[in-house]
Protein backbone atom coordinates (compact mmCIF):
# COMPACT_ATOMS: atom_id res chain seq x y z
CA UNK A 1 0.00 0.00 0.00
CA UNK A 2 0.90 3.65 -0.04
CA UNK A 3 3.26 3.62 2.93
CA UNK A 4 5.46 0.86 1.55
CA UNK A 5 5.90 2.41 -1.85
CA UNK A 6 8.39 5.04 -0.73
CA UNK A 7 12.09 4.29 -0.63
CA UNK A 8 13.03 3.27 2.90
CA UNK A 9 15.23 6.00 4.34
CA UNK A 10 18.54 5.07 5.92
CA UNK A 11 17.37 4.96 9.54
CA UNK A 12 20.80 4.27 10.94
CA UNK A 13 22.19 7.39 9.30
CA UNK A 14 19.40 9.47 10.83
CA UNK A 15 20.05 7.88 14.19
CA UNK A 16 23.70 8.90 13.86
CA UNK A 17 22.70 12.43 13.02
CA UNK A 18 20.36 12.66 16.01
CA UNK A 19 23.12 11.38 18.28
CA UNK A 20 25.60 13.90 16.92
CA UNK A 21 23.10 16.76 17.26
CA UNK A 22 22.45 15.79 20.88
CA UNK A 23 26.17 15.89 21.61
CA UNK A 24 26.41 19.28 19.91
CA UNK A 25 23.53 20.57 22.03
CA UNK A 26 25.21 19.58 25.26
CA UNK A 27 28.48 21.03 24.01
CA UNK A 28 26.78 24.35 23.24
CA UNK A 29 25.60 24.54 26.83
CA UNK A 30 29.05 23.94 28.29
CA UNK A 31 30.87 26.19 25.81
CA UNK A 32 29.59 29.26 27.69
CA UNK A 33 28.63 31.05 24.50
CA UNK A 34 26.91 34.43 24.77
CA UNK A 35 23.41 33.70 26.07
CA UNK A 36 21.56 34.90 22.99
CA UNK A 37 23.69 32.86 20.61
CA UNK A 38 23.31 29.83 22.84
CA UNK A 39 19.53 30.09 22.91
CA UNK A 40 19.26 30.60 19.16
CA UNK A 41 21.53 27.67 18.37
CA UNK A 42 19.78 25.39 20.87
CA UNK A 43 16.36 26.20 19.44
CA UNK A 44 17.70 25.64 15.95
CA UNK A 45 19.24 22.28 16.91
CA UNK A 46 16.07 21.14 18.68
CA UNK A 47 13.91 22.02 15.68
CA UNK A 48 16.32 20.21 13.40
CA UNK A 49 16.10 17.07 15.53
CA UNK A 50 12.35 17.30 15.81
CA UNK A 51 12.05 17.67 12.04
CA UNK A 52 14.24 14.62 11.46
CA UNK A 53 11.99 12.55 13.70
CA UNK A 54 8.79 13.87 12.16
CA UNK A 55 9.88 13.63 8.53
CA UNK A 56 11.65 10.28 8.57
CA UNK A 57 10.65 8.25 11.62
CA UNK A 58 7.04 9.36 11.35
CA UNK A 59 7.54 9.39 7.55
CA UNK A 60 5.64 12.60 7.09
CA UNK A 61 7.87 13.23 4.10
CA UNK A 62 6.21 10.38 2.30
CA UNK A 63 2.61 11.04 3.31
CA UNK A 64 -0.08 12.71 1.20
CA UNK A 65 -0.21 16.50 1.48
CA UNK A 66 -3.69 16.44 2.99
CA UNK A 67 -2.42 14.55 6.02
CA UNK A 68 0.24 17.23 6.42
CA UNK A 69 -2.45 19.89 6.70
CA UNK A 70 -4.03 18.02 9.60
CA UNK A 71 -0.67 17.66 11.30
CA UNK A 72 0.31 21.31 10.86
CA UNK A 73 -3.07 22.70 11.98
CA UNK A 74 -2.26 23.09 15.69
CA UNK A 75 1.14 24.75 15.27
CA UNK A 76 -0.03 28.29 14.39
CA UNK A 77 -2.53 28.15 17.25
CA UNK A 78 0.19 27.13 19.68
CA UNK A 79 2.36 30.03 18.53
CA UNK A 80 -0.53 32.50 18.73
CA UNK A 81 -1.40 31.36 22.25
CA UNK A 82 2.12 31.65 23.64
CA UNK A 83 2.92 34.96 21.97
CA UNK A 84 -0.37 36.62 22.82
CA UNK A 85 -0.17 35.61 26.46
CA UNK A 86 3.44 36.74 26.74
CA UNK A 87 2.46 40.13 25.40
CA UNK A 88 -0.64 40.22 27.54
CA UNK A 89 1.15 41.07 30.75
CA UNK A 90 1.48 44.75 31.33
CA UNK A 91 4.83 46.33 31.84
CA UNK A 92 5.65 47.29 35.42
Amino acid sequence: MEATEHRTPNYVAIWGMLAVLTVVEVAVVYLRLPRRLMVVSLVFLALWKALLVALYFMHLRFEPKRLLYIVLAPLPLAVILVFAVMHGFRGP
Partner: protein
Amino acid sequence: MTAHAAAPPLGHDAPPQGGVGVYTQKVGMWVFLVSEVMFFTALIGSYIILRWGTGAQWPEPRSVLAIPVTALNTFILICSSVSMVKAYAAATRDDQAGLKRWLLLTVLGGATFVSVQAYEYHHLIEKGFLPSSGLFGSAFYTMTGFHGFHVTCGVISMIWVTIRAFRGKYAGGNYRGVETIGLYWHFVDLVWIILFTIVYLI
Protein backbone atom coordinates in the same frame (compact mmCIF):
# COMPACT_ATOMS: atom_id res chain seq x y z
CA MET B 1 -6.26 1.69 18.99
CA THR B 2 -3.99 -1.21 18.42
CA ALA B 3 -6.80 -3.61 19.11
CA HIS B 4 -8.48 -2.59 15.90
CA ALA B 5 -5.40 -2.49 13.80
CA ALA B 6 -5.73 -5.97 12.44
CA ALA B 7 -9.50 -6.08 12.24
CA PRO B 8 -10.36 -4.76 8.78
CA PRO B 9 -8.74 -6.55 5.88
CA LEU B 10 -6.31 -4.43 3.93
CA GLY B 11 -7.87 -2.16 1.38
CA HIS B 12 -11.33 -2.50 2.87
CA ASP B 13 -11.55 0.98 4.26
CA ALA B 14 -9.74 2.83 1.52
CA PRO B 15 -11.46 6.21 1.59
CA PRO B 16 -14.08 6.27 -1.12
CA GLN B 17 -14.18 10.01 -1.61
CA GLY B 18 -10.78 11.61 -1.36
CA GLY B 19 -10.19 11.24 2.36
CA VAL B 20 -6.60 12.09 3.15
CA GLY B 21 -5.45 9.00 1.32
CA VAL B 22 -4.25 6.96 4.29
CA TYR B 23 -5.89 4.20 6.25
CA THR B 24 -8.25 4.91 9.10
CA GLN B 25 -6.11 3.95 12.09
CA LYS B 26 -3.37 6.25 10.87
CA VAL B 27 -5.76 9.16 10.41
CA GLY B 28 -7.13 8.52 13.88
CA MET B 29 -3.67 8.41 15.42
CA TRP B 30 -2.61 11.64 13.75
CA VAL B 31 -5.77 13.38 14.87
CA PHE B 32 -5.05 12.16 18.39
CA LEU B 33 -1.47 13.42 18.12
CA VAL B 34 -2.77 16.82 17.06
CA SER B 35 -4.63 17.03 20.34
CA GLU B 36 -1.50 15.88 22.14
CA VAL B 37 0.37 18.76 20.54
CA MET B 38 -2.17 21.12 22.08
CA PHE B 39 -1.89 19.42 25.46
CA PHE B 40 1.86 19.87 25.50
CA THR B 41 1.37 23.40 24.21
CA ALA B 42 -0.48 24.13 27.43
CA LEU B 43 2.39 22.77 29.53
CA ILE B 44 5.38 23.96 27.49
CA GLY B 45 3.62 27.24 26.72
CA SER B 46 3.09 27.86 30.43
CA TYR B 47 6.78 27.28 31.03
CA ILE B 48 7.74 29.73 28.29
CA ILE B 49 5.22 32.30 29.50
CA LEU B 50 6.19 32.05 33.16
CA ARG B 51 9.90 32.12 32.51
CA TRP B 52 10.20 34.66 29.72
CA GLY B 53 6.90 36.51 29.77
CA THR B 54 6.68 37.73 33.33
CA GLY B 55 10.18 38.48 34.55
CA ALA B 56 9.91 35.92 37.33
CA GLN B 57 12.96 34.69 39.24
CA TRP B 58 14.37 31.65 37.51
CA PRO B 59 17.36 29.49 38.45
CA GLU B 60 19.86 28.35 35.85
CA PRO B 61 18.49 24.85 35.01
CA ARG B 62 22.01 23.48 34.85
CA SER B 63 22.61 24.49 38.47
CA VAL B 64 19.73 22.26 39.57
CA LEU B 65 19.58 19.43 37.04
CA ALA B 66 22.15 16.91 35.98
CA ILE B 67 22.61 17.48 32.24
CA PRO B 68 24.95 14.57 31.37
CA VAL B 69 22.61 11.93 32.80
CA THR B 70 19.65 13.39 30.99
CA ALA B 71 21.61 13.74 27.77
CA LEU B 72 22.35 10.04 28.00
CA ASN B 73 18.67 9.40 28.67
CA THR B 74 17.77 11.48 25.61
CA PHE B 75 20.09 9.30 23.61
CA ILE B 76 18.38 6.16 24.95
CA LEU B 77 14.99 7.48 23.91
CA ILE B 78 16.31 8.32 20.45
CA CYS B 79 17.69 4.78 20.18
CA SER B 80 14.30 3.34 21.10
CA SER B 81 12.77 5.48 18.37
CA VAL B 82 15.22 4.02 15.88
CA SER B 83 14.46 0.47 17.02
CA MET B 84 10.77 1.28 16.63
CA VAL B 85 11.20 2.39 13.07
CA LYS B 86 13.32 -0.69 12.40
CA ALA B 87 10.49 -2.82 13.79
CA TYR B 88 8.11 -1.08 11.43
CA ALA B 89 10.45 -1.67 8.51
CA ALA B 90 10.69 -5.33 9.49
CA ALA B 91 6.89 -5.58 9.65
CA THR B 92 6.51 -4.13 6.14
CA ARG B 93 9.00 -6.74 4.86
CA ASP B 94 7.14 -9.46 6.82
CA ASP B 95 10.38 -10.17 8.68
CA GLN B 96 8.80 -11.62 11.83
CA ALA B 97 12.05 -12.34 13.68
CA GLY B 98 13.27 -8.80 13.08
CA LEU B 99 9.94 -7.36 14.17
CA LYS B 100 10.02 -9.20 17.49
CA ARG B 101 13.66 -8.34 18.12
CA TRP B 102 13.24 -4.63 17.41
CA LEU B 103 10.01 -4.38 19.40
CA LEU B 104 11.69 -5.94 22.42
CA LEU B 105 14.53 -3.46 22.11
CA THR B 106 12.03 -0.62 21.93
CA VAL B 107 10.29 -1.77 25.09
CA LEU B 108 13.67 -2.03 26.76
CA GLY B 109 14.65 1.49 25.66
CA GLY B 110 11.39 2.98 26.88
CA ALA B 111 11.56 1.20 30.20
CA THR B 112 15.15 2.33 30.70
CA PHE B 113 14.16 5.91 29.98
CA VAL B 114 11.41 5.82 32.59
CA SER B 115 13.72 4.16 35.11
CA VAL B 116 16.42 6.78 34.64
CA GLN B 117 13.79 9.46 35.03
CA ALA B 118 12.58 7.87 38.27
CA TYR B 119 16.18 7.80 39.48
CA GLU B 120 16.57 11.45 38.54
CA TYR B 121 13.41 12.40 40.44
CA HIS B 122 14.57 10.48 43.46
CA HIS B 123 17.90 12.24 43.38
CA LEU B 124 16.36 15.69 42.94
CA ILE B 125 13.86 15.16 45.72
CA GLU B 126 16.66 14.06 48.06
CA LYS B 127 18.48 17.26 47.19
CA GLY B 128 15.36 19.15 48.22
CA PHE B 129 14.17 20.17 44.77
CA LEU B 130 10.40 19.60 44.93
CA PRO B 131 7.31 20.50 42.89
CA SER B 132 6.78 23.24 45.44
CA SER B 133 10.28 24.63 44.85
CA GLY B 134 9.27 27.78 43.06
CA LEU B 135 7.99 28.08 39.53
CA PHE B 136 10.84 26.07 38.10
CA GLY B 137 10.08 23.12 40.36
CA SER B 138 6.38 23.35 39.50
CA ALA B 139 6.95 23.45 35.77
CA PHE B 140 9.79 20.92 35.76
CA TYR B 141 7.86 18.18 37.53
CA THR B 142 4.61 18.82 35.68
CA MET B 143 6.21 18.80 32.22
CA THR B 144 8.66 15.94 32.64
CA GLY B 145 6.11 14.08 34.75
CA PHE B 146 3.50 14.19 32.04
CA HIS B 147 6.05 13.26 29.45
CA GLY B 148 7.09 10.33 31.62
CA PHE B 149 3.45 9.36 31.96
CA HIS B 150 3.17 9.34 28.16
CA VAL B 151 6.29 7.17 27.85
CA THR B 152 4.88 4.80 30.45
CA CYS B 153 1.62 4.51 28.52
CA GLY B 154 3.71 3.96 25.40
CA VAL B 155 5.71 1.18 27.06
CA ILE B 156 2.54 -0.55 28.21
CA SER B 157 1.01 -0.37 24.73
CA MET B 158 4.31 -1.48 23.27
CA ILE B 159 4.34 -4.56 25.49
CA TRP B 160 0.85 -5.30 24.23
CA VAL B 161 1.98 -4.93 20.62
CA THR B 162 5.02 -7.10 21.30
CA ILE B 163 2.83 -9.85 22.74
CA ARG B 164 0.67 -9.64 19.63
CA ALA B 165 3.77 -9.79 17.46
CA PHE B 166 4.85 -12.96 19.21
CA ARG B 167 1.40 -14.37 18.53
CA GLY B 168 1.92 -13.63 14.85
CA LYS B 169 -0.79 -10.98 14.55
CA TYR B 170 1.35 -8.84 12.28
CA ALA B 171 2.26 -11.57 9.86
CA GLY B 172 1.61 -11.31 6.15
CA GLY B 173 2.53 -7.65 5.77
CA ASN B 174 -0.05 -6.48 8.29
CA TYR B 175 2.08 -3.65 9.57
CA ARG B 176 -0.67 -1.17 10.47
CA GLY B 177 -0.78 -1.77 14.19
CA VAL B 178 2.99 -1.43 14.38
CA GLU B 179 3.02 1.73 12.34
CA THR B 180 0.22 3.35 14.36
CA ILE B 181 1.81 2.69 17.75
CA GLY B 182 5.11 3.77 16.22
CA LEU B 183 3.67 7.19 15.39
CA TYR B 184 2.76 7.66 19.02
CA TRP B 185 6.20 6.49 20.12
CA HIS B 186 8.04 8.88 17.82
CA PHE B 187 5.78 11.70 18.92
CA VAL B 188 6.72 11.12 22.52
CA ASP B 189 10.36 11.15 21.45
CA LEU B 190 9.81 14.39 19.56
CA VAL B 191 8.22 16.04 22.58
CA TRP B 192 11.20 14.99 24.66
CA ILE B 193 13.60 16.60 22.19
CA ILE B 194 11.76 19.90 22.69
CA LEU B 195 11.43 19.46 26.47
CA PHE B 196 15.08 18.55 26.89
CA THR B 197 16.14 21.69 25.11
CA ILE B 198 13.72 24.04 26.83
CA VAL B 199 13.77 22.66 30.36
CA TYR B 200 17.32 21.39 30.72
CA LEU B 201 19.52 23.27 28.31
CA ILE B 202 18.30 26.82 27.80
